[in-house]
């Protein structure tokens, strides 16, 4: 098509999906492709596979918590010698790798890698990323990580088993735990590669967003998704080096015999440690200096996507666009000075605890602001309950819970009791699963047409949402009251404590819910792959949305746009009074619409 084509016609004629033109071999087009969309999808598929693996790991964990030492289905064969019961070190390995996989191989890459890659150029009107080769590398650097983490399950002693935080001296000392052998080394290697990948990505995103916006696309006309991706990239760029450095220090402690993190005269498993003079808390500081910002890396993009989806299906402008942007920036800024709230009980100077408590209380603020603005966005809209919308709404609803429960932990005296109990487990699962994962599902249902040119089945989408929503809350909400009892996390069997032995039925209930939750994802998988090939054709703009990606063909060919998009307004001009359609795309020329707009203001 030519530039002369009016997008309004573009909008209504359901265009057949334009085939991806072949530049070079299959290999260079689909495997080692430099096209941001292909890379995005590569990220999407890899992370979804790991999502499944992580989920199954979680099930095994839940099994042990609910029925410790009783025969494990399927896995039982591994423990024939023990009569089918799970060995405790195997359990520690399970929850360690569950967290590791979910955080480093699913959430971070699926948000930044999959959606970031796919959406950024499309939503800012660029034909590709600034550095396509870097982009490709950022994906292929994930593979050494995939291999390292995957292989670590099969080495002597099994995979890493000192928690995803891998605190020294448990993690630095080979003798301290079976998983602290080969498994931990591979874990550190994997982590490094994930870091490299994210770093390459973030550099690319920042450059692209700053330099390659379409004409007329000012920073404050960017959709929230892009803002979120931008801030996330900044966070990664500043936080990651610290983790990578710390990782190398730990690697050195383990392999070169340095003593950054181990004090003098430590006797682990009755082996006298030769090195010493270090300080275990140093790792915790370095680790959380990355990993707290990382918490926001794991939620901000979802927030952005949810904002876009809410506006689309509420047919209403985003409530308080700039406050939303500022609050994201605020979160990012404060995110760097709150890491200490993970260490209230760690032996860090209690006086520091007070300062970190204050900053932590303050970071709850921007989150609150965002929540209120989402409510404001829904208020007075014309809400369409599509699957994407439902997931987006559940994100808001669940994020409220996750946010509020955070306040308990932020209050240092209360944290004395609930630190490292199931209360914290509930908290971060509400933020990361009930929050981010819901956002991700919303994003997949919402952008699926743009990715594959076909829409996912709505009916089964809603079934998927309903069951997930029920089971999810059944699993995670219960954790709050478990935490109130002080039920500690990471215990292979807590029922020999008088304080906790009556909690077994509750845990059994949660495990059944968890099983249901994982099983439900089969519906999603089926729907996803079925719709990829047999789903109804989508057309360019099935949701009648405003942002730039919807002006491109579905799926967009190489180079994305078949005309040069020129941006005339912000991304959220829905239900503009006096305009016949209930939305004005960013590319719509400022003719009659502009008049109407002026009248409205």
């Amino acid at each position, binding site marked *: 098509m030519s530039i002369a084509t009016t997008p309004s016609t573009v909008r209504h004629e359901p265009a057949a999906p334009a085939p991806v033109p072949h530049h070079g071999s299959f290999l260079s087009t689909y495997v080692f492709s430099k096209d941001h969309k292909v890379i995005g999808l590569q990220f999407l598929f890899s992370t979804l596979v790991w999502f499944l693996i992580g989920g*199954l790991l979680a*099930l095994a964990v839940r099994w042990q918590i*609910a*029925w*410790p*030492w*009783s*025969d*494990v*289905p*399927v*896995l*039982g*064969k591994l*423990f*024939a*010698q*023990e*009569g*089918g*019961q799970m*060995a*405790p*070190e*195997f359990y520690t390995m399970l929850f360690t790798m569950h967290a590791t996989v979910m955080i480093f191989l699913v959430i971070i890459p699926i948000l930044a890698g999959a959606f970031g890659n796919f959406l950024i150029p499309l939503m800012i009107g660029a034909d590709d990323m600034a550095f396509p080769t870097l982009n490709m590398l950022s994906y292929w650097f994930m593979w050494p990580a995939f291999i390292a983490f995957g292989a670590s399950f099969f080495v002597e*002693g099994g995979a890493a088993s000192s928690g995803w935080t891998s605190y020294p001296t448990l993690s630095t000392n080979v*003798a301290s*735990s*079976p998983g602290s052998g080969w498994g931990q080394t591979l874990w550190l290697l994997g982590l490094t590669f994930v870091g490299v990948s994210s770093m390459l990505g973030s550099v690319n995103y920042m450059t692209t967003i700053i330099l390659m916006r379409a004409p007329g696309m000012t920073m404050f006309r960017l959709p929230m998704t892009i803002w979120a991706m931008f801030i996330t990239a900044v966070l990664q760029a500043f936080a990651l080096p610290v983790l990578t450095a710390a990782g190398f220090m730990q690697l050195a402690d383990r392999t070169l015999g340095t003593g950054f993190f181990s004090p003098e*005269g430590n*006797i682990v*498993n*009755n*082996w*006298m440690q030769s090195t010493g003079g270090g300080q275990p808390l140093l790792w915790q500081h370095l680790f959380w200096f990355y990993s707290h910002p990382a918490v926001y890396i794991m939620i901000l993009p979802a927030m952005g996507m949810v904002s876009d989806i809410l506006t689309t299906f509420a047919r209403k402008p985003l409530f308080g666009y700039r406050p939303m942007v500022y609050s994201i920036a605020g979160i990012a800024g404060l995110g760097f000075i709150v890491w200490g709230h993970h260490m209230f009980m760690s032996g860090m100077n209690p006086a520091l605890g007070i300062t970190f408590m204050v900053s932590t209380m303050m970071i709850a603020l921007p989150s609150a602001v965002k929540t209120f603005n989402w409510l404001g966005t829904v208020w007075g809209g014309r809400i*369409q309950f*599509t699957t994407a919308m439902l997931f987006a709404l559940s994100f808001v609803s669940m994020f409220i819970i996750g946010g509020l429960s955070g306040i308990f932990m932020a209050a240092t005296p209360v944290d004395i009791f609930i630190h490292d109990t199931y209360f914290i487990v509930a908290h971060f699962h509400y933020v990361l699963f009930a929050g981010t994962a819901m956002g991700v599902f919303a994003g997949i249902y919402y952008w699926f047409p743009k990715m594959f040119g076909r829409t996912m*089945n*709505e*009916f*089964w989408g809603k079934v998927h949402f309903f069951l997930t929503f029920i089971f999810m809350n059944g699993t995670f909400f219960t954790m709050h009251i478990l935490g109130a009892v002080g039920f500690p996390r990471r215990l292979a*069997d807590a*029922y020999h404590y008088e304080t906790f*032995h*009556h909690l*077994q039925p509750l845990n*059994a209930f949660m495990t059944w819910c968890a*099983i249901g939750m*994982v*099983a439900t994802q*089969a*519906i999603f998988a*089926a*729907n996803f792959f*079925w719709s990829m090939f*047999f*789903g*109804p054709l*989508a057309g360019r703009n*099935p949701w009648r949305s405003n942002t730039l990606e919807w002006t491109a063909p579905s799926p967009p060919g190489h180079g994305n746009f078949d005309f040069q998009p020129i941006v005339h307004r912000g991304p959220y001009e829905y239900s503009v009074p006096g305009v016949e359609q209930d939305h004005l795309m960013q590319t719509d020329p400022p003719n009659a619409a502009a008049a109407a707009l002026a009248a409205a203001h």
Partner: protein
Amino acid sequence: MPHASMMRSAMHRHPVTIIAILGLCLLATGCGQTPPAYFRPNMVEATKQRLTPDQEKQVATVLLAMFGTPDEPVCMPETGLDEAKLRLAAGPVRSDIVGRKNGLYREHCAHCHGVTGDALGPTAAFLNPYPRDYRPGVFKFKSTERADKPTHTDLVRLLHNGVPGTSMPSFALLPSAQVEALAEYVKYLSIRGETELTLMRAFFELDDEAQGKLPETREFLVDETLTPIAEKWKAAADAQIQVPPMPADIDLVASIAKGKELFYGDKANCVKCHGVTGLGDGQANDYDDWNKAIVEIGKEISSGSAKARETSTSGMSPDELSEHRAQLAWIEKFGRVLDGDALEPRTIPPRNLRHGIYRGGRRPLDLYYRIHAGINGAPMPAAKGTVPPEEIWHIVNYIRSLPYELDGELGADKPMLAKDRF
């Protein structure tokens, strides 16, 4: 909704796919058959004794008849074991039943000591020192003479205090009924293991007319094999070492000084292994019996294979050749058996006497037992006979003073001559 129509049209074709995939998932997670727990035969000994599969099978069968399975233990009256206690300790864990009445051993012990009591639990390989293998029936920390079995009280006390300086935890918080049951079950596993060893070794003693089959008679299996082993356990209770009381009017300082003399002297000769510093840095490259056995076998195998390599098969008569082949096969099998059924041998360093950690207990009485009778299974020799009781008491007092020779902090590790400290 622009796509409502598509939606409806799609709905009909779906359920098949989805149900299929759901089914697959259930298949993947739901049904998995877990084999019941079983007693693993002592493959190291079986291979050492060159048992044939039939012979291994016979031993397994006899043991099954005499001792039952990990889930349903039985015991011959001759063992003098209390089956009720055994049932409390044995069996799978049913943690979903509050106040359940079985599975204690597999809940608390099997991870390290193994369901069979062979110290090959999944966690064993990562512990230092390795957990105890009950099968040879050798126990270290007890109130009886070197070769005697521990008394029931000894086992209970050990469970109660744990073994400081090892991975053996204290079970003081378990109800005593459960501790009793566990102690009884340890005896059961030990008697079973020792019986197994005896049976496997018995094949070599067989006359040729027995055609490599043990007589399955009460005389042989019970009277000749089981009863002697069980008797040793029964005898333990009355075999406690009689400890002459420490002289009441003992002058501690003088006693400690005397103890030091003995520690460094040629008579008690402690210094040879525990070192001039008392840090356990003397003769330290020896093995305990369990590891030594594996080391010896390792040597045997390597020498055997070396031998086999250098002998040329050329000019061998057919049966010589088959013999040669058999030898090679045996060596190869032994290699695999050690891989799976034995732990990497580790030396046993003498105790560092300055940590103030005493595995067998810190009571003066415990130290007296150790010095008097030595430590069974370990290099520590007995001083009885060559060192009179009152001198043993002196040594005890000196040992107890060692951790405090520095500025009162435990675990001092600066290699300084103990002589210069006092």
